[in-house]
């Protein structure tokens, strides 16, 4: 029997995306970014993102169908990110997908965005369960033991900011363009990581939890000390600050990965996903931590937000017979592992992670 043809839709942050997938083969994957819209504000503005998504989701779907050379009638199921994320954007994707499902009678599958990232190593490398995943992106940072398509055990995660956010903030503090990740990495390449010694928060504490907020503050102080001396910073200062920052993030992620691996004997691989996984220095450090265990890092286009991973995660749910009704809600918060104690957020809105 051939695998079902699945349409994936993603709109949870600042990328509008649609993809068509059969089995593990990606027939098309369209990603429309919004960097230019958010650039003047130094970060993603939720209302601006929502406005863009609402008028792009259907266009991306059309482009993905055309790119795959299929019609909507040939699609077997529609998978859509139903959270967590910026609710305005998630809603745009969910409503469009529900409309397609209602009008065509095709099954609807709500996908957790984090599950999309977490299952990507199976899409790209057919990794067998269980495996350890470090999800590290602009909005998330957590260690997950992936036991099945819908079984995730969170071993630890950030208690405040995500590293991607910290990279963006660092870029802003040092007058580098957004997105911060690649620009800070480029500047760090020629920098001296030893000149500014920045903290490695929570490394002195047991477990796999991480913190990046204090690191941002430390970077700001180091920068201000330089500015106080001469009224600005030189390219040299900037490169050294970037290198120091990147080294601190790398050390935190590497050491916590070592601990996470120690907590899950018997895993088949150590995989990494999320935009920060694109950083070569971090990637190399994680690969070293993996040692003899296979290390899986998907290509960049499948590390950052995309709809192929949503289609794939949807296909895995479909295989388990899990589909959703047309009342499918969009959820701003949706932890993958409901059994783990909340790391971030609580109260009326519920746990964030």
């Amino acid at each position, binding site marked *: 029997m051939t695998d079902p043809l699945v349409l994936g839709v993603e709109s949870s942050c600042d990328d509008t995306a649609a993809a068509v997938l059969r089995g593990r083969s990606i027939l098309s994957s369209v990603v429309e970014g919004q960097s230019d819209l958010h650039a003047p504000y130094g970060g993603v503005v939720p*209302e601006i993102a929502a406005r863009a998504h609402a008028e792009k989701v259907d266009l991306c779907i059309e482009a993905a169908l055309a790119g795959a050379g299929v019609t909507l009638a040939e699609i077997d199921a529609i998978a859509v990110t139903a959270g967590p994320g910026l609710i305005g954007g998630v809603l745009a994707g969910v409503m*469009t997908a529900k409309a397609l499902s209602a009008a065509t009678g095709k099954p609807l599958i709500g996908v957790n965005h984090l599950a999309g990232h977490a299952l990507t190593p199976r899409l790209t490398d057919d990794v067998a369960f269980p495996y350890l995943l470090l999800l590290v992106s602009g909005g998330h940072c957590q260690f997950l033991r992936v036991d099945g398509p819908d079984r995730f055990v969170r071993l630890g995660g950030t208690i405040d900011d995500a590293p991607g956010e910290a990279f963006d903030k660092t870029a802003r503090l040092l007058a580098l363009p957004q997105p911060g990740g690649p620009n800070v990495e480029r500047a760090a390449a020629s920098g001296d990581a030893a000149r500014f010694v920045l903290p490695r928060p929570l490394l002195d504490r047991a477990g796999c939890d991480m913190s990046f907020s204090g690191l941002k503050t430390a970077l700001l102080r180091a920068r201000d000390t330089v500015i106080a001396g001469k009224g600005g910073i030189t390219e040299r200062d900037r490169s050294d600050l970037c290198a120091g920052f990147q080294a601190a993030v790398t050390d935190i992620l590497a050491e916590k990965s070592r601990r996470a691996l120690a907590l899950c004997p018997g895993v088949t691989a150590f995989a990494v996903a999320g935009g920060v996984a694109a950083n070569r220095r971090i990637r190399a450090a994680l690969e070293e931590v993996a040692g003899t265990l296979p290390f899986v890092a998907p290509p960049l286009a499948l590390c950052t937000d995309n709809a192929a991973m949503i289609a794939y995660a949807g296909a895995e749910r479909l295989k388990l017979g899990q589909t959703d009704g047309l009342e499918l809600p969009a959820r701003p918060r949706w932890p993958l592992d409901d059994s783990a104690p909340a790391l971030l957020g609580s109260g009326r809105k519920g746990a964030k992670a």
Partner: protein
Amino acid sequence: MNAGLTLVFDTSGPWIAAGLASNGRLLHAATETMARGQAERLIPLLEELLTATGTRWAELTAIGVGTGPGNFTGTRIAVATARGLSLALGIPAHPITAFEMALAPPTSLVLLEAPRGRAYAQRFADGRAAGPPEVVDPATLGPDAPPVRAAAPPSPAAMARLLHARLSAGAAPDRPAPLYIRPADAAPPSDPPPVILP
């Protein structure tokens, strides 16, 4: 067989107003008020309208969607749904603004309640928009200005009639988009970037 079956809906405020019409004449309608939950309720409610009239999705020939101005998120819920239905069914989705729904000739100026004591305003002439919509302070409009209309669910019958008139005129719509009028609340970062020294 029902010719010219159209579906109209609006979620631009704390409500869902929807109707199914044949040649502009309402067959069935529903209006539900709700502070939240429109995203969960909208499509099931539309399916109820179809079921009540024995209509299949594939029989629809056009969609009319309320584009506001109104609640930003609510407007997007309806617009995204309309665009999805339009794509899946291969039928046009026509935007219908809250101004068009509220227009009551011979009045030419339509004023709609906006946040913070303001009003959304648009002028019409002969039933057509005679200028762009804007945000105004109602206190500055003088004694001849019509009253500001409070936010309320639109009449599905009126939406169906407006859509029918649009279709009869042979209008080919752009894809519907929310009518925001107000820009997104966003400010550039307050801390200036450092000076980069040579």
